[in-house]
Protein backbone atom coordinates (compact mmCIF):
# COMPACT_ATOMS: atom_id res chain seq x y z
CA UNK A 1 0.00 0.00 0.00
CA UNK A 2 1.24 3.52 -0.80
CA UNK A 3 2.10 5.40 2.34
CA UNK A 4 1.63 9.12 2.73
CA UNK A 5 4.95 10.90 2.35
CA UNK A 6 5.18 13.72 4.89
CA UNK A 7 7.92 15.60 3.02
CA UNK A 8 5.89 16.09 -0.11
CA UNK A 9 2.79 16.79 1.93
CA UNK A 10 4.31 19.53 4.07
CA UNK A 11 5.23 21.62 1.05
CA UNK A 12 1.58 22.12 0.17
CA UNK A 13 0.34 22.76 3.71
CA UNK A 14 -0.19 26.28 5.02
CA UNK A 15 1.90 26.62 8.17
CA UNK A 16 -0.11 28.06 11.06
CA UNK A 17 1.52 30.64 13.30
CA UNK A 18 0.48 31.29 16.93
CA UNK A 19 -1.13 34.49 15.70
CA UNK A 20 -3.29 32.45 13.31
CA UNK A 21 -4.39 30.32 16.27
CA UNK A 22 -5.22 33.45 18.22
CA UNK A 23 -7.49 34.55 15.39
CA UNK A 24 -9.17 31.11 15.51
CA UNK A 25 -9.63 31.63 19.26
CA UNK A 26 -12.02 34.48 18.47
CA UNK A 27 -14.56 31.83 17.49
CA UNK A 28 -14.50 30.46 21.06
CA UNK A 29 -15.16 34.00 22.26
CA UNK A 30 -18.27 34.01 20.05
CA UNK A 31 -19.41 30.82 21.81
CA UNK A 32 -18.72 32.42 25.20
CA UNK A 33 -20.65 35.54 24.22
CA UNK A 34 -23.67 33.47 23.18
CA UNK A 35 -23.46 31.58 26.46
CA UNK A 36 -23.44 34.84 28.46
CA UNK A 37 -26.23 36.37 26.37
CA UNK A 38 -28.51 33.31 26.72
CA UNK A 39 -27.43 32.74 30.35
CA UNK A 40 -26.30 29.18 29.68
CA UNK A 41 -23.67 29.32 32.41
CA UNK A 42 -21.16 27.80 30.01
CA UNK A 43 -18.83 30.76 29.41
CA UNK A 44 -16.41 29.72 32.14
CA UNK A 45 -16.51 26.16 30.84
CA UNK A 46 -15.63 27.36 27.35
CA UNK A 47 -12.68 29.38 28.67
CA UNK A 48 -11.33 26.40 30.62
CA UNK A 49 -12.10 24.04 27.75
CA UNK A 50 -10.28 26.21 25.21
CA UNK A 51 -7.19 26.41 27.41
CA UNK A 52 -7.30 22.66 28.09
CA UNK A 53 -7.67 21.90 24.39
CA UNK A 54 -4.63 24.01 23.55
CA UNK A 55 -2.48 22.55 26.34
CA UNK A 56 -3.54 18.93 25.67
CA UNK A 57 -3.11 19.16 21.92
CA UNK A 58 0.24 20.92 22.08
CA UNK A 59 1.44 18.35 24.61
CA UNK A 60 0.26 15.46 22.48
CA UNK A 61 1.92 17.09 19.47
CA UNK A 62 5.27 17.05 21.25
CA UNK A 63 4.72 13.47 22.46
CA UNK A 64 3.91 12.30 18.94
CA UNK A 65 6.89 14.15 17.51
CA UNK A 66 9.11 12.44 20.07
CA UNK A 67 7.58 8.99 19.47
CA UNK A 68 7.85 9.28 15.69
CA UNK A 69 11.44 10.49 15.97
CA UNK A 70 12.63 7.83 18.45
CA UNK A 71 10.63 4.87 17.10
CA UNK A 72 10.92 2.60 20.14
CA UNK A 73 8.40 -0.28 20.26
CA UNK A 74 8.09 -0.15 24.07
CA UNK A 75 7.34 3.57 24.04
CA UNK A 76 4.67 3.01 21.40
CA UNK A 77 3.07 0.21 23.42
CA UNK A 78 3.25 2.32 26.58
CA UNK A 79 1.45 5.12 24.75
CA UNK A 80 -1.26 2.74 23.57
CA UNK A 81 -1.66 1.50 27.15
CA UNK A 82 -2.04 5.04 28.49
CA UNK A 83 -4.68 5.68 25.83
CA UNK A 84 -6.47 2.46 26.81
CA UNK A 85 -6.52 3.37 30.50
CA UNK A 86 -7.72 6.91 29.81
CA UNK A 87 -10.49 5.59 27.56
CA UNK A 88 -11.50 2.99 30.16
CA UNK A 89 -11.71 5.63 32.85
CA UNK A 90 -13.84 7.86 30.63
CA UNK A 91 -16.14 4.98 29.71
CA UNK A 92 -16.76 4.01 33.35
CA UNK A 93 -16.63 7.31 35.25
CA UNK A 94 -20.22 8.26 34.63
CA UNK A 95 -21.75 4.81 35.05
CA UNK A 96 -24.13 4.44 37.96
CA UNK A 97 -23.45 0.93 39.19
CA UNK A 98 -20.48 -1.30 40.00
CA UNK A 99 -17.86 1.13 38.74
CA UNK A 100 -14.77 -0.70 40.03
CA UNK A 101 -15.84 -3.98 38.42
CA UNK A 102 -16.93 -2.17 35.30
CA UNK A 103 -13.48 -0.59 34.99
CA UNK A 104 -11.94 -4.06 34.75
CA UNK A 105 -14.68 -5.25 32.38
CA UNK A 106 -14.50 -2.25 30.04
CA UNK A 107 -10.71 -2.16 30.08
CA UNK A 108 -10.46 -5.83 29.17
CA UNK A 109 -13.20 -5.50 26.54
CA UNK A 110 -11.42 -2.57 24.88
CA UNK A 111 -8.11 -4.37 25.10
CA UNK A 112 -9.68 -7.28 23.24
CA UNK A 113 -11.86 -5.31 20.81
CA UNK A 114 -9.41 -2.52 20.00
CA UNK A 115 -6.29 -4.67 20.38
CA UNK A 116 -7.44 -7.44 18.04
CA UNK A 117 -8.59 -4.86 15.49
CA UNK A 118 -5.37 -2.89 15.61
CA UNK A 119 -3.22 -6.02 15.36
CA UNK A 120 -5.25 -7.22 12.38
CA UNK A 121 -5.00 -3.88 10.56
CA UNK A 122 -1.30 -3.64 11.39
CA UNK A 123 -0.28 -7.13 10.27
CA UNK A 124 -2.82 -8.07 7.60
CA UNK A 125 -4.13 -4.83 6.08
CA UNK A 126 -1.31 -2.26 6.25
CA UNK A 127 1.58 -4.72 6.79
CA UNK A 128 3.58 -2.06 8.63
CA UNK A 129 7.38 -2.14 8.83
CA UNK A 130 8.30 -2.01 11.60
CA UNK A 131 5.09 -3.36 13.10
CA UNK A 132 5.11 -0.66 15.77
CA UNK A 133 5.45 2.28 13.35
CA UNK A 134 4.10 5.09 15.58
CA UNK A 135 3.09 7.29 12.66
CA UNK A 136 0.33 4.80 11.85
CA UNK A 137 -0.29 2.85 15.04
CA UNK A 138 -1.01 5.75 17.35
CA UNK A 139 -3.49 7.69 15.19
CA UNK A 140 -5.26 4.46 14.20
CA UNK A 141 -5.49 3.28 17.80
CA UNK A 142 -6.77 6.71 18.80
CA UNK A 143 -9.71 6.34 16.44
CA UNK A 144 -10.36 2.72 17.39
CA UNK A 145 -10.20 3.32 21.12
CA UNK A 146 -12.39 6.42 20.95
CA UNK A 147 -15.15 4.46 19.25
CA UNK A 148 -14.64 1.35 21.37
CA UNK A 149 -14.95 3.58 24.42
CA UNK A 150 -18.33 4.89 23.28
CA UNK A 151 -19.45 1.35 22.53
CA UNK A 152 -18.38 0.13 25.98
CA UNK A 153 -20.06 3.06 27.74
CA UNK A 154 -23.29 2.70 25.76
CA UNK A 155 -23.44 -1.07 26.27
CA UNK A 156 -22.96 -0.78 30.03
CA UNK A 157 -25.29 2.16 30.46
CA UNK A 158 -28.07 0.63 28.39
CA UNK A 159 -27.72 -2.80 29.99
CA UNK A 160 -28.03 -1.19 33.39
CA UNK A 161 -31.21 0.66 32.50
CA UNK A 162 -32.72 -2.35 30.67
CA UNK A 163 -32.06 -4.61 33.66
CA UNK A 164 -33.71 -2.05 35.92
CA UNK A 165 -36.68 -1.60 33.58
CA UNK A 166 -37.09 -5.36 33.01
CA UNK A 167 -36.53 -6.45 36.56
CA UNK A 168 -39.98 -8.05 36.77
CA UNK A 169 -39.57 -9.82 33.44
CA UNK A 170 -36.07 -11.09 34.28
CA UNK A 171 -37.26 -12.42 37.63
CA UNK A 172 -40.29 -14.05 35.97
CA UNK A 173 -37.89 -15.96 33.71
CA UNK A 174 -35.72 -16.98 36.65
CA UNK A 175 -38.77 -18.12 38.60
CA UNK A 176 -39.62 -20.55 35.78
CA UNK A 177 -36.14 -22.08 35.99
CA UNK A 178 -34.49 -20.04 33.21
CA UNK A 179 -30.74 -19.39 33.28
CA UNK A 180 -29.59 -15.82 33.94
CA UNK A 181 -28.45 -15.70 30.30
CA UNK A 182 -31.94 -16.61 29.08
CA UNK A 183 -33.61 -14.28 31.59
CA UNK A 184 -31.54 -11.29 30.50
CA UNK A 185 -31.34 -12.08 26.76
CA UNK A 186 -33.67 -9.25 25.72
CA UNK A 187 -31.85 -6.71 27.90
CA UNK A 188 -28.49 -7.79 26.48
CA UNK A 189 -29.82 -7.67 22.93
CA UNK A 190 -31.11 -4.12 23.36
CA UNK A 191 -27.89 -2.99 25.02
CA UNK A 192 -25.88 -4.35 22.10
CA UNK A 193 -28.10 -2.71 19.50
CA UNK A 194 -27.77 0.62 21.34
CA UNK A 195 -24.00 0.26 21.51
CA UNK A 196 -23.46 -0.79 17.89
CA UNK A 197 -26.11 1.32 16.13
CA UNK A 198 -24.11 4.59 16.06
CA UNK A 199 -21.29 2.79 14.24
CA UNK A 200 -23.73 1.35 11.73
CA UNK A 201 -25.25 4.80 11.20
CA UNK A 202 -21.75 6.18 10.66
CA UNK A 203 -21.12 3.56 7.94
CA UNK A 204 -24.35 4.58 6.24
CA UNK A 205 -23.64 8.31 6.03
CA UNK A 206 -19.87 8.53 5.91
CA UNK A 207 -18.84 10.75 3.01
CA UNK A 208 -22.40 12.03 2.57
CA UNK A 209 -23.30 13.80 5.77
CA UNK A 210 -19.87 13.81 7.34
CA UNK A 211 -16.31 13.94 6.12
CA UNK A 212 -14.33 12.09 8.75
CA UNK A 213 -11.58 13.92 10.59
CA UNK A 214 -8.77 11.71 9.45
CA UNK A 215 -9.73 12.00 5.81
CA UNK A 216 -10.12 15.76 6.10
CA UNK A 217 -6.72 15.93 7.74
CA UNK A 218 -5.05 13.87 5.06
CA UNK A 219 -6.57 15.96 2.29
CA UNK A 220 -5.53 19.23 3.96
CA UNK A 221 -2.14 17.62 4.53
CA UNK A 222 -1.77 17.24 0.80
CA UNK A 223 -2.66 13.59 0.20
CA UNK A 224 -4.66 12.68 -2.83
CA UNK A 225 -8.35 12.39 -1.87
CA UNK A 226 -8.33 8.87 -3.30
CA UNK A 227 -5.54 7.81 -0.96
CA UNK A 228 -7.36 9.48 1.92
CA UNK A 229 -10.54 7.62 0.98
CA UNK A 230 -8.77 4.26 1.04
CA UNK A 231 -7.48 4.94 4.52
CA UNK A 232 -10.92 6.04 5.56
CA UNK A 233 -12.45 2.81 4.29
CA UNK A 234 -9.97 0.85 6.40
CA UNK A 235 -10.85 3.07 9.36
CA UNK A 236 -14.64 2.65 9.16
CA UNK A 237 -14.37 -1.15 8.75
CA UNK A 238 -11.95 -1.21 11.65
CA UNK A 239 -14.38 0.74 13.82
CA UNK A 240 -17.24 -1.63 13.01
CA UNK A 241 -15.21 -4.63 14.15
CA UNK A 242 -13.75 -2.96 17.23
CA UNK A 243 -17.05 -1.54 18.49
CA UNK A 244 -18.92 -4.83 18.00
CA UNK A 245 -16.22 -6.87 19.77
CA UNK A 246 -15.87 -4.42 22.65
CA UNK A 247 -19.62 -4.07 23.16
CA UNK A 248 -20.31 -7.79 23.21
CA UNK A 249 -17.58 -8.46 25.78
CA UNK A 250 -18.88 -5.64 27.99
CA UNK A 251 -22.53 -6.71 27.73
CA UNK A 252 -21.97 -10.43 28.35
CA UNK A 253 -19.52 -9.92 31.20
CA UNK A 254 -21.34 -7.00 32.88
CA UNK A 255 -24.55 -9.06 32.73
CA UNK A 256 -23.02 -11.49 35.24
CA UNK A 257 -22.81 -8.74 37.86
CA UNK A 258 -26.61 -8.48 38.00
CA UNK A 259 -26.97 -12.05 39.31
CA UNK A 260 -25.77 -13.93 42.39
CA UNK A 261 -24.18 -17.38 42.28
CA UNK A 262 -27.62 -18.78 43.19
CA UNK A 263 -29.05 -17.15 40.04
CA UNK A 264 -30.93 -14.46 41.91
CA UNK A 265 -31.16 -10.82 40.91
CA UNK A 266 -28.70 -8.76 42.93
CA UNK A 267 -30.71 -6.37 45.11
CA UNK A 268 -30.70 -2.73 44.04
Amino acid sequence: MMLVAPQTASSSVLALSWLDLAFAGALVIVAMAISAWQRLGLARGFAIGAVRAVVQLVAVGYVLTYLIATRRWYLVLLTLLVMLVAATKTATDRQKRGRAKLFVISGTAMLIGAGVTLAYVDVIVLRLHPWYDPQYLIPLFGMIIGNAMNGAALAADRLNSEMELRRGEVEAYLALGASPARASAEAVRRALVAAIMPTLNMLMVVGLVSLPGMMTGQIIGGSSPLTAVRYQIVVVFMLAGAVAMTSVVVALWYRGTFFTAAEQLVSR
Partner: protein
Amino acid sequence: MTAADAVTAFSLRQVQQIRGDDVHTLRDVDLDIPRGEVVALVGPSGAGKTSLIRLLNRLDSPASGSITYDGSLIETIPVRELRRRVAFVFQAPAMFPGTVAENLAVARDLARAAPNAGAIKIPEPDEALHLAGVDPAFASRDAQSLSGGERQRVSIARALMTGPETLLLDEPTSALDPDVADHIIATVRMLAASMQLTVVMVTHRLEEARAVSTRTVFMEAARVIEAGPTETMFTAPTNERARNFLLRGK
Protein backbone atom coordinates in the same frame (compact mmCIF):
# COMPACT_ATOMS: atom_id res chain seq x y z
CA MET B 1 -55.04 -35.30 56.52
CA THR B 2 -53.36 -33.70 59.52
CA ALA B 3 -49.94 -32.14 59.66
CA ALA B 4 -48.57 -35.06 61.65
CA ASP B 5 -49.11 -37.73 59.02
CA ALA B 6 -48.55 -35.55 55.97
CA VAL B 7 -45.28 -35.50 54.09
CA THR B 8 -43.61 -32.16 54.58
CA ALA B 9 -42.99 -30.09 51.44
CA PHE B 10 -41.15 -27.19 53.03
CA SER B 11 -39.58 -27.08 56.43
CA LEU B 12 -38.05 -23.83 57.73
CA ARG B 13 -35.89 -23.70 60.85
CA GLN B 14 -34.62 -20.56 62.56
CA VAL B 15 -34.76 -18.61 59.32
CA GLN B 16 -33.53 -15.03 59.52
CA GLN B 17 -33.49 -12.51 56.77
CA ILE B 18 -31.99 -9.06 56.99
CA ARG B 19 -32.42 -6.23 54.52
CA GLY B 20 -29.50 -4.10 53.36
CA ASP B 21 -30.26 -1.48 56.01
CA ASP B 22 -29.93 -4.03 58.87
CA VAL B 23 -33.68 -4.41 59.36
CA HIS B 24 -34.92 -7.95 59.98
CA THR B 25 -37.50 -8.92 57.37
CA LEU B 26 -37.74 -12.41 58.90
CA ARG B 27 -36.83 -13.37 62.45
CA ASP B 28 -36.58 -16.87 63.97
CA VAL B 29 -39.03 -18.39 61.49
CA ASP B 30 -39.89 -22.06 62.16
CA LEU B 31 -42.56 -23.39 59.83
CA ASP B 32 -43.64 -26.65 58.23
CA ILE B 33 -45.67 -26.67 55.03
CA PRO B 34 -47.22 -30.10 54.50
CA ARG B 35 -47.45 -31.48 50.97
CA GLY B 36 -50.83 -31.19 49.28
CA GLU B 37 -52.10 -28.43 51.54
CA VAL B 38 -53.17 -24.95 50.57
CA VAL B 39 -51.42 -22.62 52.97
CA ALA B 40 -52.37 -18.96 53.33
CA LEU B 41 -49.82 -16.50 54.71
CA VAL B 42 -51.69 -13.63 56.33
CA GLY B 43 -50.75 -10.65 58.44
CA PRO B 44 -50.39 -6.87 58.31
CA SER B 45 -48.26 -5.15 55.64
CA GLY B 46 -44.58 -5.45 56.37
CA ALA B 47 -45.03 -8.67 58.34
CA GLY B 48 -42.58 -10.53 56.09
CA LYS B 49 -45.05 -12.61 54.05
CA THR B 50 -43.56 -11.81 50.65
CA SER B 51 -40.01 -12.07 52.03
CA LEU B 52 -40.85 -15.58 53.24
CA ILE B 53 -42.49 -16.88 50.08
CA ARG B 54 -39.59 -15.58 47.94
CA LEU B 55 -37.20 -17.79 49.88
CA LEU B 56 -39.10 -20.93 48.92
CA ASN B 57 -37.91 -21.06 45.32
CA ARG B 58 -34.70 -19.17 46.08
CA LEU B 59 -35.57 -15.86 44.48
CA ASP B 60 -33.83 -14.66 47.68
CA SER B 61 -31.65 -16.43 50.22
CA PRO B 62 -31.97 -16.23 54.01
CA ALA B 63 -29.21 -14.67 56.10
CA SER B 64 -29.21 -17.80 58.30
CA GLY B 65 -31.30 -20.84 59.15
CA SER B 66 -32.25 -23.80 57.01
CA ILE B 67 -34.98 -24.51 54.47
CA THR B 68 -35.66 -28.01 53.19
CA TYR B 69 -37.90 -29.10 50.34
CA ASP B 70 -38.93 -32.74 50.21
CA GLY B 71 -36.34 -33.43 52.87
CA SER B 72 -33.40 -31.87 50.98
CA LEU B 73 -31.79 -28.57 51.87
CA ILE B 74 -32.86 -26.28 49.04
CA GLU B 75 -29.26 -25.20 48.40
CA THR B 76 -28.51 -28.83 47.46
CA ILE B 77 -31.23 -28.91 44.78
CA PRO B 78 -30.07 -27.38 41.47
CA VAL B 79 -31.73 -23.99 41.50
CA ARG B 80 -33.35 -24.30 38.07
CA GLU B 81 -34.82 -27.66 39.02
CA LEU B 82 -36.17 -26.23 42.27
CA ARG B 83 -37.76 -23.32 40.43
CA ARG B 84 -39.32 -25.59 37.86
CA ARG B 85 -40.80 -27.78 40.60
CA VAL B 86 -41.82 -24.82 42.75
CA ALA B 87 -43.52 -22.28 40.50
CA PHE B 88 -43.93 -18.66 41.52
CA VAL B 89 -46.78 -16.37 40.54
CA PHE B 90 -46.03 -12.68 41.12
CA GLN B 91 -48.29 -9.97 42.46
CA ALA B 92 -48.03 -8.00 39.19
CA PRO B 93 -46.76 -10.61 36.73
CA ALA B 94 -44.55 -9.49 33.85
CA MET B 95 -45.59 -10.84 30.47
CA PHE B 96 -42.81 -11.84 28.10
CA PRO B 97 -42.73 -10.23 24.65
CA GLY B 98 -45.09 -11.91 22.17
CA THR B 99 -48.41 -13.71 22.34
CA VAL B 100 -49.98 -15.67 25.17
CA ALA B 101 -49.02 -18.88 23.35
CA GLU B 102 -45.41 -17.68 23.13
CA ASN B 103 -45.42 -16.91 26.84
CA LEU B 104 -46.50 -20.47 27.56
CA ALA B 105 -43.93 -21.83 25.10
CA VAL B 106 -41.12 -20.14 27.05
CA ALA B 107 -42.07 -22.12 30.15
CA ARG B 108 -42.65 -25.34 28.20
CA ASP B 109 -39.25 -25.09 26.50
CA LEU B 110 -37.54 -24.56 29.85
CA ALA B 111 -39.22 -27.68 31.24
CA ARG B 112 -38.33 -29.68 28.12
CA ALA B 113 -34.70 -28.63 28.47
CA ALA B 114 -34.56 -29.95 32.06
CA PRO B 115 -32.23 -32.93 32.62
CA ASN B 116 -35.16 -35.10 33.73
CA ALA B 117 -37.60 -33.74 31.14
CA GLY B 118 -38.98 -37.20 30.38
CA ALA B 119 -40.29 -37.55 33.93
CA ILE B 120 -42.04 -34.19 33.97
CA LYS B 121 -45.70 -34.05 33.12
CA ILE B 122 -45.89 -30.96 30.93
CA PRO B 123 -49.47 -30.00 30.10
CA GLU B 124 -50.61 -28.97 26.64
CA PRO B 125 -50.93 -25.17 26.32
CA ASP B 126 -54.71 -25.46 25.83
CA GLU B 127 -54.97 -27.57 28.96
CA ALA B 128 -52.93 -25.09 31.03
CA LEU B 129 -55.04 -22.20 29.76
CA HIS B 130 -58.20 -24.13 30.56
CA LEU B 131 -56.97 -24.97 34.08
CA ALA B 132 -56.15 -21.31 34.70
CA GLY B 133 -59.58 -20.26 33.42
CA VAL B 134 -58.36 -18.64 30.21
CA ASP B 135 -60.31 -19.00 26.98
CA PRO B 136 -58.01 -20.93 24.57
CA ALA B 137 -58.86 -18.27 21.95
CA PHE B 138 -56.58 -15.99 23.99
CA ALA B 139 -53.54 -17.93 22.82
CA SER B 140 -52.99 -15.62 19.86
CA ARG B 141 -53.47 -12.40 21.83
CA ASP B 142 -50.54 -10.07 22.48
CA ALA B 143 -49.64 -10.75 26.11
CA GLN B 144 -48.77 -7.10 26.76
CA SER B 145 -52.32 -6.03 25.89
CA LEU B 146 -54.06 -8.13 28.57
CA SER B 147 -55.93 -6.70 31.56
CA GLY B 148 -54.66 -7.28 35.10
CA GLY B 149 -56.91 -10.27 35.73
CA GLU B 150 -56.10 -11.83 32.37
CA ARG B 151 -52.39 -11.40 32.99
CA GLN B 152 -52.71 -13.08 36.34
CA ARG B 153 -54.49 -16.07 34.79
CA VAL B 154 -51.96 -16.31 31.96
CA SER B 155 -49.14 -16.15 34.48
CA ILE B 156 -50.76 -19.05 36.37
CA ALA B 157 -51.10 -21.00 33.12
CA ARG B 158 -47.47 -20.20 32.31
CA ALA B 159 -46.38 -21.44 35.72
CA LEU B 160 -48.30 -24.70 35.16
CA MET B 161 -46.38 -25.31 31.91
CA THR B 162 -43.27 -26.35 33.84
CA GLY B 163 -45.23 -29.18 35.46
CA PRO B 164 -44.74 -27.91 39.05
CA GLU B 165 -45.49 -29.77 42.30
CA THR B 166 -45.89 -26.60 44.29
CA LEU B 167 -47.38 -23.24 43.42
CA LEU B 168 -46.34 -20.09 45.25
CA LEU B 169 -48.61 -17.07 44.83
CA ASP B 170 -47.60 -13.65 46.08
CA GLU B 171 -50.77 -11.59 46.62
CA PRO B 172 -52.18 -12.75 43.28
CA THR B 173 -55.39 -10.76 43.67
CA SER B 174 -54.26 -7.55 45.34
CA ALA B 175 -54.34 -5.51 42.13
CA LEU B 176 -57.66 -6.91 40.91
CA ASP B 177 -61.35 -6.00 41.24
CA PRO B 178 -63.14 -8.08 43.91
CA ASP B 179 -65.13 -10.24 41.47
CA VAL B 180 -62.08 -10.88 39.27
CA ALA B 181 -60.19 -11.75 42.47
CA ASP B 182 -62.93 -14.21 43.48
CA HIS B 183 -62.57 -16.02 40.17
CA ILE B 184 -58.80 -16.30 40.57
CA ILE B 185 -59.26 -17.72 44.06
CA ALA B 186 -61.78 -20.26 42.76
CA THR B 187 -59.21 -21.23 40.12
CA VAL B 188 -56.48 -21.70 42.72
CA ARG B 189 -58.75 -23.89 44.84
CA MET B 190 -59.72 -25.99 41.83
CA LEU B 191 -56.06 -26.34 40.75
CA ALA B 192 -54.95 -27.47 44.18
CA ALA B 193 -57.64 -30.14 44.25
CA SER B 194 -57.39 -31.38 40.66
CA MET B 195 -53.59 -31.36 40.31
CA GLN B 196 -52.70 -32.24 43.92
CA LEU B 197 -50.56 -29.11 44.06
CA THR B 198 -49.13 -27.80 47.27
CA VAL B 199 -50.07 -24.12 47.32
CA VAL B 200 -48.58 -21.33 49.40
CA MET B 201 -50.39 -18.04 48.94
CA VAL B 202 -49.72 -14.65 50.43
CA THR B 203 -52.87 -12.62 50.83
CA HIS B 204 -54.06 -9.62 52.73
CA ARG B 205 -57.72 -10.55 52.27
CA LEU B 206 -58.82 -12.66 55.21
CA GLU B 207 -62.01 -13.94 53.57
CA GLU B 208 -59.84 -15.12 50.68
CA ALA B 209 -57.50 -17.00 53.02
CA ARG B 210 -60.43 -18.59 54.77
CA ALA B 211 -62.13 -19.61 51.52
CA VAL B 212 -59.14 -21.18 49.82
CA SER B 213 -56.71 -22.49 52.41
CA THR B 214 -56.51 -25.62 54.54
CA ARG B 215 -53.85 -24.10 56.77
CA THR B 216 -53.26 -20.49 57.77
CA VAL B 217 -50.04 -18.89 58.95
CA PHE B 218 -50.30 -15.58 60.77
CA MET B 219 -47.23 -13.36 60.58
CA GLU B 220 -46.44 -10.08 62.24
CA ALA B 221 -43.28 -7.98 62.57
CA ALA B 222 -41.04 -10.47 60.71
CA ARG B 223 -42.17 -13.45 62.83
CA VAL B 224 -44.55 -16.36 62.43
CA ILE B 225 -46.89 -15.79 65.35
CA GLU B 226 -49.21 -18.75 64.95
CA ALA B 227 -49.93 -21.43 62.35
CA GLY B 228 -52.61 -24.11 62.21
CA PRO B 229 -55.63 -25.52 60.39
CA THR B 230 -57.57 -22.65 58.81
CA GLU B 231 -60.83 -23.39 60.64
CA THR B 232 -59.08 -23.34 64.01
CA MET B 233 -57.12 -20.21 63.15
CA PHE B 234 -60.30 -18.35 62.17
CA THR B 235 -62.39 -19.54 65.12
CA ALA B 236 -60.08 -20.07 68.08
CA PRO B 237 -56.49 -18.91 67.61
CA THR B 238 -54.51 -19.14 70.82
CA ASN B 239 -52.33 -16.09 70.39
CA GLU B 240 -53.93 -12.79 71.30
CA ARG B 241 -52.49 -10.83 68.39
CA ALA B 242 -53.61 -13.57 65.98
CA ARG B 243 -57.07 -13.41 67.56
CA ASN B 244 -57.24 -9.64 67.15
CA PHE B 245 -56.15 -9.83 63.52
CA LEU B 246 -58.04 -12.90 62.32
CA LEU B 247 -61.27 -12.48 64.29
CA ARG B 248 -61.55 -8.73 64.50
CA GLY B 249 -59.51 -7.70 61.50
CA LYS B 250 -57.12 -5.42 63.37
